């Protein structure tokens, strides 16, 4: 059980397991608290899954009554909780806003900046097909004439990017513009390292994605 360093395939620098864990924890927290879906961290998740697997094999070699067994199991079940909840939260967002997410994702795939994992993307597409099928079968095919159209734009729900969120600044960021909706009273603020704020998500969405702030 002495594997402290693990190799992130494709990357030269080695990254320790506890750093991977911290990254996942942060991603989980942000995902839980942001209105929109965030770029996936599949690299980190897979890395951690590998680590868990490795650990589980080692635990099996220990006697069942060994104190270490229960300590390791407890840690693993904590980590599994984070991973499960993280992935589940993403699925919930994908289901809820699947039309807009698929549309946005199509463009992001073209530019190579996809937010969803290939699995998630497939899940989203299948989910939308299922919805469409059910609505058609039950209602749309029964109603008269031009009422039968599946109006995808009317069905589409979007995340509310104007919703207010709490955040903590991981580093100092100057000049965040709190745009007034009507354009006449824009306000500018600085986020000092460690300071905490509540404001509209859309003003700091990019900072969440690049790790300069953390949602709390």
């Amino acid at each position, binding site marked *: 059980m002495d594997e402290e360093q693990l190799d992130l395939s494709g990357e030269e620098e080695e990254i320790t397991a506890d750093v991977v864990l911290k990254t996942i924890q942060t991603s989980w927290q942000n995902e839980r608290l942001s209105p929109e879906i965030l770029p996936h961290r599949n690299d980190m*998740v*897979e890395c951690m*899954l*590998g680590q868990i*697997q490795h650990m589980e094999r080692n635990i099996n070699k220990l006697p*069942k009554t060994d104190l270490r067994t*229960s300590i390791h*199991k*407890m840690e693993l*079940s*904590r980590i*599994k*909780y984070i*991973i*499960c*909840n993280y*992935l*589940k939260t993403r*699925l919930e967002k994908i*289901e809820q806003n699947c039309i807009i997410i698929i549309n946005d994702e199509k463009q992001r795939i073209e530019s190579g900046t996809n937010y969803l994992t290939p*699995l*998630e993307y*497939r*899940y989203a597409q*299948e*989910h939308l097909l*299922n*919805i469409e*099928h*059910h*609505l058609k*079968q*039950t*209602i749309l095919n*029964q*109603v*008269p*004439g031009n*009422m039968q159209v599946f109006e995808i734009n*009317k*069905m589409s729900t979007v995340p509310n990017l104007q919703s207010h969120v709490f955040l903590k600044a991981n580093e100092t960021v100057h000049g965040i513009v709190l745009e007034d909706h009507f354009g006449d009273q824009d306000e500018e603020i600085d986020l000092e390292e460690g300071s905490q704020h509540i404001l509209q998500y859309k003003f700091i969405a990019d900072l969440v994605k690049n790790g300069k702030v953390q949602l709390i």
Partner: protein
Amino acid sequence: MFGEKVIELLKESERNRETLDQYNDEKIRQIIEEMHVLFKLNMNDANATTENKSLWTTVQVRHSALERNKRCLLAYLYNRMNKIKILRWEFGSVLPPDIRELLSDAEYDWFSKYSTNLATYMRSLGQDIGYNGIDLTENLRPPKSLNIEVLCLVDYGKLELEDGDVIMLKKNSTHFLPTSECQTLIRQGILKQIT
């Protein structure tokens, strides 16, 4: 009045926000019928509007009623779909008969498709690194302790644990079990946590 029935339908589903009611087949049939009546009336009058301008308003109102009915029907269905999704997370891929009865056949079909899509996703998780997938319907709450004390509420029979031990779950018996292995049984109402 037009559009009244569909409002009754929506009110019905608003009344029990948390739980699923019986699918209201009859009312939906009536609403769709109303739509066919309105549509026919409009078809008949539409051509006459060029001569008779006053008909135009009538046609517009009927059209709005049609749109409204359609939108509300879809909302009713969509709302139920969201509730049916939750059932998958609670009960797994097999629904208890009393709940299955609340769904229309088409809804059961939707449930199965949702279930399959979710299962495919979960099974594929981590496959690149030799995993057989991850069940996301487990680990729903942060773990507090590895084992919990549970009371068995029904005569369930044998349960084989991950470590190979087999225990007998009888009504009113208590057991000290790994938390991760009894979550599903707790959700299904077979076990109850007592610690």
